[in-house]
């Protein structure tokens, strides 16, 4: 997309003001409205679909397979596919590796373990059907919802098969299944989310639109774990804006506090969607 110099300077000046004016009037910590559903793929263990108001759409499916834990390098496999973008492009690689590392680190240790030999392996497939602006936000939110809705069947065979080999057998009743990462107290596990903030001058904006990305100096990517902490990676990414270079360290602090003030609300809204959907089905 091309912009005229007059448009660029109008947008940039508006966003650089001490009290910035975004082109759609949002406050700097306001997201655009989203539409989301979970658990819509009948053949997946968990799934989610998120749509943005500017026409972006992402669907995520989570499937679990029983594997011998010893022969697998990782029990989580994330595959991100962005329509129209090469699979080896930096955006796709960054997205999948960031999500993979963060989800792996936050998942409780024994969440996927079945027996001494066998274990579940999760295949998370994210497909970004269309996304005018940066795909990080939408993919991360859809992955969060999909993992939240993921259910694993209940194991009925013995868990101890260190000596006598035994093939795992599962309960046929899907109502007996448990949510991924659910512990004895039925407390649900929450995966981390990531958000991209656009930097314009001394200001930061969550959920930047295409125009905002275009006039931005850079983007700051940061994660938020469900237990209320800002998590790594906190890094500067390219949002398509032309002005690259260093950022003031104060902006990183600003990003930190911006995330602290917005992320809990985002998590709350996402959980509300997850709860609403699971109620309507079961």
């Amino acid at each position, binding site marked *: 997309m*091309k*912009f*005229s*110099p*007059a*448009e660029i*300077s*109008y*947008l940039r*000046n*508006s966003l650089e*003001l001490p*009290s910035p*004016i*975004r*082109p*759609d*009037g*949002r*406050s700097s*910590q*306001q*997201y*655009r*409205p*989203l*539409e*989301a*559903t979970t658990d*819509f793929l009948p053949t997946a263990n968990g799934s989610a679909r998120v*749509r943005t*108001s500017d026409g972006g759409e992402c669907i995520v499916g989570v499937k679990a397979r029983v594997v011998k834990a010893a022969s697998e390098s990782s029990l989580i496999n994330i595959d991100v596919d962005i329509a129209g973008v090469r699979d080896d492009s930096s955006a796709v690689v960054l997205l999948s590796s960031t999500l993979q590392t963060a989800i792996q680190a936050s998942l409780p240790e024994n969440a996927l373990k079945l027996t001494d030999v066998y274990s579940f392996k999760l295949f998370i497939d994210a497909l970004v059907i269309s996304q005018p602006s940066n795909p990080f936000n939408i993919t991360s939110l859809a992955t969060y919802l999909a993992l939240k809705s993921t259910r694993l069947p209940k194991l009925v065979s013995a868990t101890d098969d260190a000596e006598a080999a035994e093939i795992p057998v599962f309960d046929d009743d899907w109502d007996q299944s448990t949510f991924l990462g659910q512990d004895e107290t039925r407390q649900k596990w929450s995966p981390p989310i990531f958000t991209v903030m656009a930097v314009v001058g001394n200001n930061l904006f*969550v959920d930047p639109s295409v125009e905002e990305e275009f006039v931005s100096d850079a983007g700051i990517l940061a994660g938020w774990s469900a237990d209320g902490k800002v998590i790594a990676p906190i890094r500067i990414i390219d949002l398509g804006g032309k002005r690259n270079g260093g950022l003031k360290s104060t902006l990183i602090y600003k990003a930190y506090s911006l995330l602290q*003030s*917005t992320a809990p*609300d*985002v998590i709350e*809204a*996402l959980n*509300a*969607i997850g709860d*609403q*959907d699971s109620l*309507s*089905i079961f």
Partner: protein
Amino acid sequence: MGVISITVPQGARAEVANEEDLIYEDADSDSDVEMREFNDNEEENIGGSLYVANDLVTPGELVTEETVWMRGHGTYTTVNDKTYSSVAGTITKVNKLLSVTPIRGRYSPEIGDHIVGRITEVGQKRWKVDIGAKQDAVLMLGSINLPGGILRRKSESDELQMRQFLKEGDLLNAEVQALFSDGAASLHTRSLRYGKLRNGYFLSIPASLVIRQKNHVYRLPGNVDLILGVNGYVWLSKRTSTGPSGADNVTITRLEEEAGLEIYSDKNEEIPGSIREAIARYSNCIRALVYKEVGINESRLITAYEASLVYENAGELVDNEVKDAIAAEVIAES
């Protein structure tokens, strides 16, 4: 005001009905189709001039099998000489000319349309302009005003400095001067009302929501000018004396005095925050009307703007419920 609102898409869960009901419905609808076909055949025997009960047709639908009609836009025929619709839209009849006007689709230029466009290419004595139509429009070097309003033939040196007037990405407003045989438009900007755009913000809406009118430049409350391009490209800007709404009464003899040297400038004037806020609010109002598929004109937009003042912060207007409320108020007023 919340940080984020996430909703379940409407109708997403409606399909998860009782399975037995679904089977029944399927069986029912099957028989329905058969009945309808039977009825259709009956009508065919009687022979009606126009097939469809209402004026709405879908692609491939039989419109008429009478040969008296001349087939216009949006229709096609096969060897059997019947007329079918090639688009989804409404039937229009002018004397014996039958055409189907598409409900949605790309903008199709007509002579005299006031449009907003973006330069995509600088070529030999001409610019290519994206106007949201099937093809890019053409703006000839001879169809623009020179800085300072000098009236003369364009020379080779003008040809060499075309990029100093308009370059790729630049926005301009223009009038459709002529149409080529393939439907592409030729534009001109030979009036002070037209020309390069600055001091504002661009947004694009479906062309089908813009109603063709005599005037497409509006002076809106809050010191904002709006150019509502017939092609669905919209330009919101600060009101200036030389801007689109200020240049209405300039005659060709005063062109030289009025057309400043800066008509091809890329530099914005000083724009106060209040006007920037008003522009953001107007763009959100337009988006709200688009969201509810309400056709846009001056009075509706002003109604929407006034209705939106209830919400102190223009950012609240991105919310779908608020958009609904604004659009409902506009429909009630008009």
